[in-house]
């Protein structure tokens, strides 16, 4: 099968920036195998997952000392219930469980850890959509405050809170990337509810924010990062008019983006849909390594991923010749 790739050609400045970011990321790995948000900071699960993605994408060998150490770090932080905490010192799982599962799903020999994490996600129900809450809501008089459809259910940032757009998207991404791991049959209904929630929470005019499309009758503004996570989560879902509206919103927003992190994720999102990103106000190489490093390991990883056409996820969409022919005919 012939494959076509749509990404722009990376220039020398891009390649240099990526190389320098990866060098900084590698040197920022802590002795325990994890990464903090900044060099020398406490190892945390989230920056570790992002840094690991960028580094794994840059090397074919998953058997290096650095990779073994990061796997060891993530294994050591998994809680007995299968989840991962946002920081040391807490015994409560969180949304970073999705990140850990999505990452470890691509590492051999981590199947059990991923299964346990996904099971925790399956069992984690936000409190706002519980039957009791729905019953109480029938007696609420201030229904004009928000306009959510509470029959849908996603995931919260932390257990026993409300469904929000980003953790819901992260969970869907994790389930998508861990398809090889056996999942409970009930998860397909849960996924469907989550997808419905994401469409329900779309801002008027397209795009997503944290999950407040309308409060007190006033439309909320969409934001770049939540919109990207949602679009990436919905990448393999059936076509939907709201998804198309979200993509259109992102295409319009991208030229105005003024930060490296958002620009990087916006670009990889559109490329994941096979769409050439429009010209931005600045190229990623506009920012110095130092400026990117100051924003944290996650932003370093996002920029590195955006400057890597061979990234594992979100992959640059490759179209086969049959698809091209079909589009040409249309």
């Amino acid at each position, binding site marked *: 099968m012939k494959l076509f790739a749509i990404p722009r050609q990376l220039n020398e400045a891009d390649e240099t920036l990526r190389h320098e970011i990866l060098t900084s990321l590698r040197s920022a790995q802590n002795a325990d195998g994890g990464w*903090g*948000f*900044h060099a020398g*900071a*406490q190892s*945390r699960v*989230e*920056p570790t997952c992002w840094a690991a993605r960028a580094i794994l994408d840059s090397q074919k060998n998953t058997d290096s000392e650095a990779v073994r150490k990061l796997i060891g770090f993530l294994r050591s932080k998994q809680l007995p219930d299968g989840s991962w905490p*946002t*920081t040391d*010192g*807490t015994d409560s799982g*969180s*949304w970073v469980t999705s990140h850990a599962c999505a990452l470890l799903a691509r590492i051999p020999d981590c199947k059990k850890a991923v299964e346990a994490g996904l099971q925790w996600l399956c069992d984690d129900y936000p*409190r706002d959509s519980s039957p009791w809450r729905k019953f109480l809501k029938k007696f609420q008089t*201030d229904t004009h*405050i928000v306009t959510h459809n509470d029959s849908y259910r996603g995931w*919260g*940032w*932390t257990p*026993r*809170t*409300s469904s*929000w757009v*980003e*953790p819901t998207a992260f969970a869907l991404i994790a389930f998508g990337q861990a398809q090889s791991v056996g999942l409970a049959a009930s998860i397909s209904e849960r996924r469907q509810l989550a997808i419905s929630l994401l469409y329900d929470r779309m801002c008027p005019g397209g795009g997503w*924010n*944290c999950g407040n499309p309308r*409060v*007190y009758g*006033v439309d909320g*503004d969409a*934001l*770049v*990062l939540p919109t990207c996570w949602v679009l990436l989560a919905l990448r393999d879902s059936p076509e939907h008019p709201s998804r198309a509206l979200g993509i259109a919103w992102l295409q319009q927003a991208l030229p105005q*983006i*003024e*930060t*490296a*992190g*958002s620009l990087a994720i916006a670009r990889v999102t559109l490329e994941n849909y096979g769409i050439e990103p429009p010209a931005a106000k600045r190229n990623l190489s506009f920012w110095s390594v130092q400026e990117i490093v*100051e*924003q*944290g390991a*996650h*932003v370093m990883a996002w920029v590195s991923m955006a400057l890597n056409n061979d990234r594992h996820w979100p992959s640059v969409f490759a179209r086969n010749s049959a698809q091209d022919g079909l589009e040409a005919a249309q």
Partner: protein
Amino acid sequence: MNQRKRDVIPSFARPLSHVMIRKVACYQEDLLAVIFESLSEFHLPVKDKTVLLKPNLVGHDPQGVMNTHPAVIAATRESFLKLGAQRVLIGDGPAMDRDTQAILESVRLKDFTGNLGKDFCDLNIDDVERVVLETHATRLKELFLPKTVLGVDFLVSMPKLKTHHWAGVTLSMKNLFGIVPGSCYGWPKNVLHWAGIDRSILDINAAARPDFAIVDGILGMEGNGPIQGSPKSAGVLLFGDDPVAVDSTACRVMGLRPEKIDYLARAGTMLGHLDASKIHQLGESMASVRTQFSVLPEFHRLVAP
């Protein structure tokens, strides 16, 4: 190490608090002169100390009505340096947008402060330390708070003068929601909503104990705040050594009754002074600056007669 730990002193045992009201018509005025002069009156123990300014940075704000104005932040930073502070950090952990840098770009902070480098701290992704909550206002037993906040010598809360559609008003105490790290609790920090906004404000303030408050009320927000309200010019800056007293005074400037605001009424018993008779007011008189702010119908009970 947690340097913010302080004993909770009941209000009846507290000395008078001090709040200063200054008239400032617009952001083009000589803010450095006004702020330096005002801070000097308080004889603050900041010489050779590390100060953290915690402004309210929320999001894209074309009308300049949502975020603490960068001119006020920059002039305050400069003033503390002139007062002898060794280092003046600026830090916030925005609640709704993870891209803190985008908010900084949007408010053009760098145009006013110059390049801050490591003197800006994104509190959402700072290292954290567990703080046991001893006030038990909520059912939360602990919060993970940024080490930068817990480690500074002097913490200044710098809110915008705004109404708030859940809490009534958002001022220096509510502003401390921004020290709760998103990397632990998400965007928004929903665990605080479930614990109860009013009571969470008490727990956070009791844990972090801000030393001083400066309210940007030159241009405030009324109605459906803190994001979607309307601009309201009040033409004031408020300064004070007791966040409860500053917020109570700010409410009175807005034509609202602080004792009707749940978290302020509770804070008035343990964290500072609510009662005007316990607040030594400096600067302008209340009558000369009072500007009625409109509130959502749910909050009509707050409006002073």
